[in-house]
């Protein structure tokens, strides 16, 4: 067995790093060269000399970091070479532009799953099964208590939640990039035909999605001075950061909900302070992670982003898959 230093990709200063190519994956501090799996804030940082990503991620990234960054883009499946290592992006189904990254060096394959889900999502490309020798997978929801319902069922629940309280303004909190657009897409296919408003940060992302050819229902940008009566019976999408503090005072007679995979647990739902929780996630559930591990045919698996103890033990005991630990 090799020592940790000899792995093609390893943990360095809390980030994934490939020494041979001197390249970082989703680094949390400025570096020379950064591969970016997707444009969520916890997967990139400002000030890198060069970014490399898919086209869609690049556009979203520029929106967030600024136009003047140096960024190289590649199509899904297109291979490029750095120091003799073949690298390619593959759809991960998490949000628009999100990708897994595959490394091939001396016939050894490594795959970084990025954030991923297998569930259907009309706002981004479906997860692609990629075969590998080494898999580095996220495991945000790595316990069997997590089993997602079909997203159209959740959308119907949301629609019912709004229409059952016609006197109220329904505030649905969700991440502004990815989750909001997926929800809009799903909700527009339900019986709910009322007005949908979205916060500026979400509105901006909706427009980018639309420009990139994704079918997103038109929403009204929410203004602070909206009359209360106009909002009655309508849905307002807001980022979770606004759920606490004075922003809510702009509205009267509201009901609130949070759309997140964590909402499947009652204790977390209660503690969150929202009236209601809708359990919908852009990450894989337990079965999803197991399926990816098996179908990737990886002999060796690493986990990060989550509590991996139980998942690792399960794979070792039940599936005889070698689960390795990063030396952090």
């Amino acid at each position, binding site marked *: 067995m090799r020592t940790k230093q000899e792995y093609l990709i390893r943990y360095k200063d809390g980030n994934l790093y490939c020494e041979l190519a001197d390249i970082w994956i989703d680094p949390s501090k400025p570096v020379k060269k950064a591969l970016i799996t997707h444009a969520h804030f916890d997967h990139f940082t400002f000030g890198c000399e060069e970014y490399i990503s898919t086209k869609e991620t690049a556009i979203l990234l520029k929106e967030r970091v600024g136009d003047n960054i140096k960024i190289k883009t590649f199509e899904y499946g297109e291979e490029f070479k750095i120091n003799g290592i073949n690298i390619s992006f593959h759809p991960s189904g998490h949000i628009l532009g999100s990708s897994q990254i595959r490394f091939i060096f001396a016939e050894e394959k490594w795959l970084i799953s990025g954030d991923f889900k297998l569930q259907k999502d009309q706002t981004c490309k479906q997860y692609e099964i990629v075969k590998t020798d080494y898999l580095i997978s996220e495991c945000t929801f790595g*316990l*069997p*208590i*997590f*089993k997602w319902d079909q997203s159209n069922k959740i959308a119907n629940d949301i629609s019912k939640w709004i229409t059952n309280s016609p006197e109220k303004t329904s505030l649905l909190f969700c991440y502004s990039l990815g989750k909001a657009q997926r929800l809009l897409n799903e909700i527009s296919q339900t019986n709910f035909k009322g007005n949908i408003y979205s916060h500026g940060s979400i509105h901006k992302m909706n427009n980018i999605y639309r420009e990139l050819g994704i079918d997103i229902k038109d929403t009204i940008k929410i203004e602070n001075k909206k009359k209360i009566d106009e909002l009655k019976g309508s849905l307002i999408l807001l980022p979770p950061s606004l759920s606490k503090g004075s922003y809510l005072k702009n509205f009267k007679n509201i009901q609130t909900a949070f759309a997140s995979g964590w909402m*499947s*647990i*009652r*204790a*977390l*739902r*209660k*503690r969150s302070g929202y*009236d*209601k*929780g809708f359990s919908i996630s852009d990450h894989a559930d*337990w*079965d999803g992670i197991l399926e990816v591990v098996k179908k990737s045919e990886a002999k060796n698996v690493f986990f990060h982003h989550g509590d991996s*103890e*139980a998942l690792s*033990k*399960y794979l070792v*005991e*039940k599936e005889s898959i070698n689960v390795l630990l990063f030396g952090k």
Partner: protein
Amino acid sequence: MSLKKFSELFGDLDSINSTNSKIEVLKNYFLSNDPIDNSWAIYLLTGKNNKRFISGRYLKNLFSQIYEYPHWLIDTCYLKVGDSAEVITLLLKNKTISRKKKLSNISLNELLSETLPALSKLNEEEKNLEIKNLWETLPEDNHLIFNKILTGTFRVGVSIGLITKSISKLINIEEEIISHRLMGDFKPSIDSYEFLINKNINLQELNSKPFPFLLANTIEDKIFKNSINDFQFEWKYDGIRMQLIKRSGNVSLWTRGQELVNESFPELVDKMSHIKDDFVLDGELLVWNFKEQIAFDFSLLQKRINRKSPTRLIQIKYPIIFIAYDLLEINGRDIREIKLENRRIELEKYFSKWQIKTENNISDIFKLCDLIFPKDWPDALTYKEKSRENNTEGLIIKKKTSIYSSGRKKGIWWKYKVDPMQLDAVLIYAKGGSGRRAGLYTDYSFALWKDKELIKFASAYSGLTNIEIKELDRWIRRNTIEKFGPVRSLKPEMVFEISFEKIQISKRHKSGIAVRFPRITKWRKDKKINDADSLENAYELMKKI
């Protein structure tokens, strides 16, 4: 009507915060369901009976056995979820999502009056098969309710008061009457529901209705500006606040929680029924130390509260007394509008009469609350400080000219409680919480110094804010020395101020002391562990009493 409806009701009640909306939801539920299902719903929602058909552990074992699931995996999931019924519900989702069996549409009544009672009669093997069968045939969104009822852990954020309000709204009859109808034994049946929603009020049924209790407020500084002579002073006893009612010859004992507790204290009911007059008394029930004429600890009273029809032996071992504070009604005449000082005169007058005229001696179970007469406010403070000596919690101060209104009315009654005792202690263990606090380390153990060693002396769960809990949880995860199941031993670093009400010698604890109601009152980030208190300091507190 199906179990599904009840599951929906549970989901709604669980996700609504506004009281008015909850009442509305309940009202609509009662309107759209059969009387018998409504009756069961009320029975479950008011927590009248949480019969446990199987334990949470049994449920988890059964799931593990049927679906060949490792125990450790279920246990890990439990730590995140904090409720056995819910863990199994979530895990079942994986198992039943692709099932082909025809789903059953069983009603709440069928489940509770047929299916579950039948289950108790089966042997273990048959029982397991039947539960498996129910899991596989019940619609998925009924699993949580089913598992919760099965394990006797059905609970939802609905008080009896809320049920009372919604039925009161439903039939437009005042709440107190509904509240009374809901008292005592409630056997789920069509009749009991019909009785509950009967629009005709039978006068007889009002006869043992207690008055709404008047409650004391925390002391305010402005009171000290008034003359001490404007107030009546009583000890604040730590017992069960109670109205003792005798009307038309029938005695009833109502707690402040509106429970009829005649069956737990038959000797009191018997003695009081010998008094010739009718009356309503406001007072406190205590287990009494007759030799020293002070109250015994509340823990002894607990031995009596939940025991119905206590044996003669129990009655002798834990002798009770009713201490009357106030007279609210006498021979059918409501005197709550009379000034307190005059009510007290009436109370004393009748009490002396009863002592002489009643055939059986009543003074071994019934006495008046002694009044205290401090000279001035500093003297009142001295009395307050002494209250631990006679096992009371402090003083109750009542305005002499006040009438007996209801609730926590301002400016009439005050409680002047002794300050809690406090020690600074070091956090040494943390355990995962359950229920709403699942997935967070919220149960803490604290230690005091003994020479160079830290000795555990108390566990506490309450007192931190949610933000502090989260912050401490993160610290705990980073500073764990060892894990023993759900418990973590921690690097001794954090000091907390622990407050408690009582301290006494205990042979059961390594520290040699036990404290009552320990709680966290401050996170002493300013203190190092060497600044924490020692067991010596704790013993000194004990000497002071």
